[in-house]
């Protein structure tokens, strides 16, 4: 690791202020991704601002027809929360399937979506459920938040405070885990709500994306067979040693059907 200054502020204002005043600072959440990047010298921040002493950034609550989850809430807390299991079981299942138990005890919702790994699970949850990302500066719809591979609409110094998930009528998330890392080779979130149907795919492309043709078909008929014959073109999908682009394209169809089944079963 390159040298950095470490700060552990005890107020949100101090955290945001610190990042503004230091030369090239980064927020530290669970550190499950950032520490590996530091170790490999892929990142060279002048300062790390640890968000670990800010209880106001973690927690899960229901506000009307929304489930609100703080940025520092650990994956394990989301997976185990009765509130999440009752209102959006697909989101609890998604969190329970991230990495392994130790990673889930440290890794956070905010860290996962700020990082926007092309194979991460939460981006599919946030985009598929049509959530809103609340930052220190503004509110961003999921559709504008994820902008590219490891890229988001966050400006330098902008902090994610919480994510607001509208509670859907039903939703399902299914991933085909890469067996060594358990990241999504492909993962699909399908959600149906009064606003319509959303289908979000992670792992397959450089960035999480929606599949409008599937959304329209499912809006007509929310059944797995409604997706028969709908194919996602392989052209722009990831092609690497884990899977070819064609294989990933095929998986999108298979997993979307399974996600609809899971949604129908209320899993």
């Amino acid at each position, binding site marked *: *690791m390159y*040298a*950095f*200054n*470490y700060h*552990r502020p005890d107020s949100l204002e101090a955290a945001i202020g610190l990042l503004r005043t230091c030369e090239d600072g980064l927020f*530290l959440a669970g*550190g*499950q991704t950032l*520490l*590996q990047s*530091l*170790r490999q010298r892929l990142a060279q921040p002048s300062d*790390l601002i*640890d968000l*670990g*002493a800010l209880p106001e950034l973690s927690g899960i609550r229901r506000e009307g027809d929304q489930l609100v989850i703080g940025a520092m809430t650990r994956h*394990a807390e989301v997976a185990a929360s009765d509130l999440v299991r009752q209102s959006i079981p697909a989101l609890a299942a998604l969190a329970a399937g991230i*990495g*392994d*138990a*130790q*990673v889930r*005890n*440290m890794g956070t919702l905010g860290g996962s979506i700020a990082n926007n790994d092309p194979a991460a699970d939460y981006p599919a949850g946030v985009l598929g459920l049509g959530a809103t990302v609340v930052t220190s500066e503004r509110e961003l719809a999921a559709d504008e938040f994820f902008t590219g591979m490891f890229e988001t609409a966050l400006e330098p110094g902008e902090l994610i405070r919480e994510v607001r998930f509208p509670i859907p009528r039903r939703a399902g998330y299914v991933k085909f885990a890469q067996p060594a890392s*358990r990241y999504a080779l492909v993962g699909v979130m399908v959600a149906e709500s009064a606003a319509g149907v959303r289908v979000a795919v992670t792992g397959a492309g450089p960035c999480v994306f929606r599949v409008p043709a599937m959304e329209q078909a499912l809006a007509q008929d929310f059944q797995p067979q409604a997706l028969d014959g709908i194919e996602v073109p392989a052209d722009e999908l990831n092609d690497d040693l884990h899977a070819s682009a064609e294989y990933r394209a095929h998986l999108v169809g298979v997993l979307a059907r399974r996600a609809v089944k899971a949604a129908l079963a209320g899993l």
Partner: protein
Amino acid sequence: MKVSMTVNGRPVEAEVDPRTTLVEFLRKHLNLTGTHVGCDTGQCGACTVHLNDRAVKSCSVLVGQAQGAAVTTIEGIAEDGGLHPVQAAFREHHGLQCGFCTPGMVMMAIDLLRNDPAPSEATIRQQLQGNLCRCTGYHNIVKAIQAAAATMAATEPAPTQMKEQLA
């Protein structure tokens, strides 16, 4: 920078480089070498310890992140020079061969039994996904954890919890 925390019930304080990981701090500053480093990249789980009663990979936690926390390592789980029921079960059921992964396995097992005192085999295997063992093939590790669950159910409260209450 200065850090302070409680390790195995004992308050500790030290001056450290901010780049120090929790496992380096335990092994090099506190000489608690029972916690092993297998990969140093968050993959193998050999470095698993408890941070405020939750299993974490101590190679993937900066020492600053443990500021003010209660840390428990493999050295801190047994009572009076004896073995913790999970350690005893690993010995009894041949849950280790070279023993390199064992401290991490035991710490993960204690965490999983705390959350689920009577886990199914599937749950045990799922909860151990972050712990790699190159020797045993996992079978006897699973058996040991099932046996430990049974012993611990018969002798409540669990020794780690007692220890923390005393601390």
